[in-house]
Structures are given as structure tokens and as C-alpha cells.
């Protein structure tokens, strides 16, 4: 990435995330920084997921979504992508992750296997 300062809200938050195969894998729903005693806050993660979005609508909706997600388990909970996995920030944010192997696509995969492929014409 380049030397210019990056506008985290304008240019990163809410942008499309694309994995290393060019697969869309959600949006940058949240950005987490770590405060440190001895230096500037570190930009740590990008977060993807329903609970993160819900918290942005209202703290109470956020809490409700977080507890709901815990019950559904993997895939419903927010997923964190370490900042170091970012390859580039442009129209889309390219991250060095394989989306199909992350929980971000768990629901998509479940739908694919249990619903879509059972309807005629749904298979590849």
C-alpha cells in the first residue's frame, strides 16, 4: 500500500471485500483498533458480520444479534480479518484470505447444499 494517510471511515469502512480468488466476501462492517500504552493505536482488524452491523443500528439490537449469533454458532458470529491480510484498498478491498474456507460464507454454503441444490436447476 502507498505512503499517503488512509481515510479509514471514507475509504475502508463499508467497502466491498474481495478474497484472493476475486470472490465477494461481505463488506467491511467494522474496523477495530487497539489502544496501546506506548504508541499510537494499531489498526488491528476488519470485522464482517451481522452482529457488527446490528450494533451500528442500535446498541440493544447489537446485543440481541450477538446473543442470537452465539446460538447459531460459526458463521453467524462476526468474523475478523487481520489488517495484515489486506492486499489493496481501491474500489474493492482485496484480502489474502480464501472466502470459501472462512465462516463468512457458512450460511451461503449451507443454503447451497440444503436448499438450492435440491431445487431442479439449482446445481452448477
Amino acid at each position, binding site marked *: *500500500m502507498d*505512503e499517503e*494517510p*488512509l*481515510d*479509514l*471511515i*471514507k475509504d475502508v*469502512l463499508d467497502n466491498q471485500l474481495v478474497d484472493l480468488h476475486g470472490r465477494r466476501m461481505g463488506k467491511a*462492517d*467494522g*474496523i*477495530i*483498533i*487497539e*489502544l*496501546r*500504552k506506548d*504508541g*499510537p*493505536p*494499531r*489498526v*488491528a482488524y476488519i*470485522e464482517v458480520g451481522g452482529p*457488527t452491523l446490528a*450494533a*451500528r443500528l442500535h*446498541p440493544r439490537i*447489537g*446485543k440481541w444479534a*450477538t446473543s442470537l449469533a452465539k446460538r447459531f454458532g460459526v458463521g453467524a458470529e462476526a468474523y475478523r480479518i487481520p*489488517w*495484515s491480510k489486506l492486499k489493496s484498498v481501491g474500489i474493492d478491498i482485496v484480502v489474502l484470505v480464501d472466502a470459501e474456507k472462512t465462516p463468512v460464507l457458512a450460511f451461503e454454503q449451507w443454503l447451497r447444499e440444503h436448499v438450492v441444490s435440491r431445487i431442479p436447476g439449482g446445481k452448477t
Partner: protein
Amino acid sequence: MSDREEDKKAGGTREVHLELLVGKAVRDPNDKRVGLIEEVLAEEQHGEWVVKEYLIGAAALLERLSAWPVGRGILGLIRKKEYPGYRVPWDKLDLSDPGRPRLTCAVEELEKFAPR
């Protein structure tokens, strides 16, 4: 959010959700409102990305939304000079309670921010 629980996990470091910080009012040491956080600038330092400064105030919002040209372009709705905005260096903002961000210096010490 369960910010506090996450703190304990991280041990020593505290986590702050930037998406929830946006729009929060910043107060000065005398508890006077200075403006809302609208933008966070990051830069690369020794191979890691760190927060450089926070932009606060209506000017920062208008900059983020790039609303100047439309406002001017349509009816002259927005007049340029009247909107306050400040650059807050990372070490001048106390985020120990992310719900109530606080300046650690006087407003007068901050660099003014004016949109393009």
C-alpha cells in the same frame, strides 16, 4: 457491545470499534462539546498501520461526504466558512471510555481543519 470483555481477553491493549466511534461527540477537558468524530486517518509506521489523527466537526463530515460541490452547485445552501473542524492527533484523544471520547488538551491547541 462487549468492549470491556474483549479488553480482558486482549490483556493490556484495549479494543475500540471505529464504526461505533464515528458520530460520537468529543468533549474538551472542561466537558464542553467540541464536535463529532467523522474521520480517522491511518498511516504506515515501521511495517504496521497505526492511527495518525481523528478529524472532528461539521467540516470533517462535509469533507467525508464531499457535500461541498452539491451544496454550492445547487443553491449555495452551504456557506463555506462557518463550519468548524479540527484535527486531533492520536495522543490528544482519550478513548478510555469509547462512549465518551475526551480531548487531553485545549481546543485552541488543535490544528483547524478546512475542507477543500
